[in-house]
């Protein structure tokens, strides 16, 4: 997996924090890649390290507390040891983020117009105020906001959640970034609005050729949005597959458990809970971090299972799917 053409390449990222209770180990050997224009989802329960991973990508972690090793390259440049000033130039221009709750992510004391101007006329660009306004208005129209003037003159709290979400999406895309990160977009919204937001994100990323990394706990959202999926549990990638393969035949016991927990529209079975809780990162379980909650666990699980490629597009980190030794 050393494809040179990847937009984002994360290689064996380990991340921990210095805490009062000791050193936590959140991410363990996370590797992930994204091709230009690709839509990838990272899925897992809350507390699995998904949002921390996004923050690590953006360099938003407190450097006094975070302990990081591994490689993050974006567009051929190393992000992990980049100077903060350099990274700040990338953020918002080449990499942008759509947050979970648009009503809290937008600044309540500025109008949407002011916030668009801030983004479009960021230092180092030379767009005029009039051009910025026109661009903002055009972009809002492209996400089916007809009365863009009214929206631009409003404060976020004067708009509905759905409108705010659309504003967020357009803002994230307004500088034509190469990579858009989305942290549980739409979870704070109604299903109808969420559905529309997903459609817009798909259309918009396609129109601008942006790649997108979507973080979510909702498998239904993954199915609708992503081409490829990484399943994360307790800071480890446990499975990687194309969306089609994953939904067709989930392999890792954790992935299977996640699927079984979703309320379905068919069948009479109740959703199946997953026993136990996401572990504490200060003292995570030895070996496979899922083994204390896993129905198939054995002693073999006490050694960290490597992410094994089981087909060209698919890897699983589980002893159940590891090739037998003699075959190797």
């Amino acid at each position, binding site marked *: 997996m050393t494809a040179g053409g990847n937009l984002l390449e994360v290689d064996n990222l380990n991340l921990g924090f210095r805490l009062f209770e000791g050193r936590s180990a959140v991410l363990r050997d996370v590797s992930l890649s994204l091709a230009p224009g690709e839509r990838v989802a990272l899925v897992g*329960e809350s507390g699995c390290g998904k949002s921390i991973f996004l923050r690590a990508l953006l360099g938003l972690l407190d450097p006094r507390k975070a302990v990081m090793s591994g490689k993050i390259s974006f567009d051929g440049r190393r992000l992990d040891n980049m100077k903060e000033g350099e990274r700040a130039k990338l953020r918002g221009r080449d990499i942008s983020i759509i947050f979970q709750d648009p009503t809290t992510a937008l600044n309540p004391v500025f109008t949407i117009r002011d916030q668009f101007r801030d983004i479009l006329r960021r230092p180092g660009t030379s767009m005029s105020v009039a051009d910025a306004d026109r661009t903002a208005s055009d972009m809002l129209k492209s996400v*089916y906001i007809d009365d863009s003037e009214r929206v631009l003159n409003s404060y976020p709290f004067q708009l509905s959640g759905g409108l705010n979400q659309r504003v967020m999406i357009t803002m994230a895309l307004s500088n034509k970034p190469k990579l858009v990160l989305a942290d549980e977009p739409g979870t704070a919204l109604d*299903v109808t609005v969420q*559905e529309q937001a997903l459609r817009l994100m798909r259309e918009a990323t396609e129109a601008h050729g942006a790649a997108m990394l979507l973080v979510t706990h909702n498998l*239904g959202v993954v*199915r609708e949005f992503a081409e490829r999926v990484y399943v994360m549990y307790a800071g480890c990638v446990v499975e990687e597959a194309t969306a089609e393969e994953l939904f067709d035949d989930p392999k890792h016991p954790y992935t299977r458990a996640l699927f079984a927990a979703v*309320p379905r529209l068919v069948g009479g079975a*109740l959703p199946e809970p997953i026993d136990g809780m996401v572990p504490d990162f200060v003292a995570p379980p030895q070996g496979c971090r899922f083994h204390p909650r896993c129905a198939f666990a054995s002693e073999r699980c006490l050694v960290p299972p490597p992410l094994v490629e089981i087909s060209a597009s698919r890897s699983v980190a589980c002893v159940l799917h590891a090739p037998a030794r003699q075959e190797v």
Partner: protein
Amino acid sequence: MSTPLIATRGLTKDFFSRRGVVNALKGVDVELHEGEVLAVVGESGSGKSTLANLVLGIQAPTTGEILLRGKPLPAVRRAADRRALQLVPQNPLSALNPRRTIFESVGLPLAVHQLRPRAERRERVRELLEMVGLPADILDRQPQVLSGGQRQRVAIARALAAEPQAIILDEPTSALDVSVQARVLRLLVDIRQRFSLSYLFVTHDLAVARILANRVIVLYKGEIVESGPTSQVLLAPRHRYSQMLSSSLPVISQEEVALKPEWNWTKKVTAESGSSAGCPFTPRCPYALDVCGRERPPLVTSPTGRTAHCFNPGDDETEAWRAAAVQSSQTKTLQSTDTGRS
């Protein structure tokens, strides 16, 4: 039919603010029968939480009344009536007093309603916690040290402590992870059977409604647009709004995608807001007819016991349905008794 456990008659609720009046509920009739689980679904702002609050007596209705076993409940309720209806809130962290231990929170209904003498309360709380699958050693702990799923179970134990006849569940699982949600849903199913309770279940998630509810009402902007048995409303909705709700549900298999009703997401609809004399959903409905903006669609009841306010539900039965709708709308106009709803 027997007297419903809870019935509301023409319930309306207006909120007044500096910017004007918000009609949160506009004449809602709901019946919850003994042993039934009735789901109230709708988007935020549809009035579903307001409905729950009115039924619980947390807020007083502007007009209309709430009947408990056929008896109208006064604005200020007697303790016995309060005890009969209990709440499981959406966010138990804000609903459980952080200064109280779990024992104090769950034991409070026992004291308020004088269900157990002081000496027996601790034992009873322990029993209640066991019923919801919590260990007894959390008795003297505070809610903030518990996980989200545990807190929700504490809230359920507290509701059970009052030995209610019905529990009003206000989005009980929407703040939880899927794995934890599954556990709470199972618990709710189990408890209902064990104590033959009725639930009024407020949710925005139709898939969750399907797990628990026998019957569903769909609220839109403070009005019931459709009601009927869960599977029918979910998989073959008669109102366009229910269709939109159902089709926006993210699902995880092709099988389920095939079940969801079709929805035209690409057709441009007019502005998000804007009220009219007609169906409140008209501005967002890509299938709206001319008549939808002019006239309020009457309540049409299908042979299968489903009722919806829609002129143009669009499937095999559509023609017959539309004819019935138009006819009953005309009759209504002729009689000029358009004072409300049938």
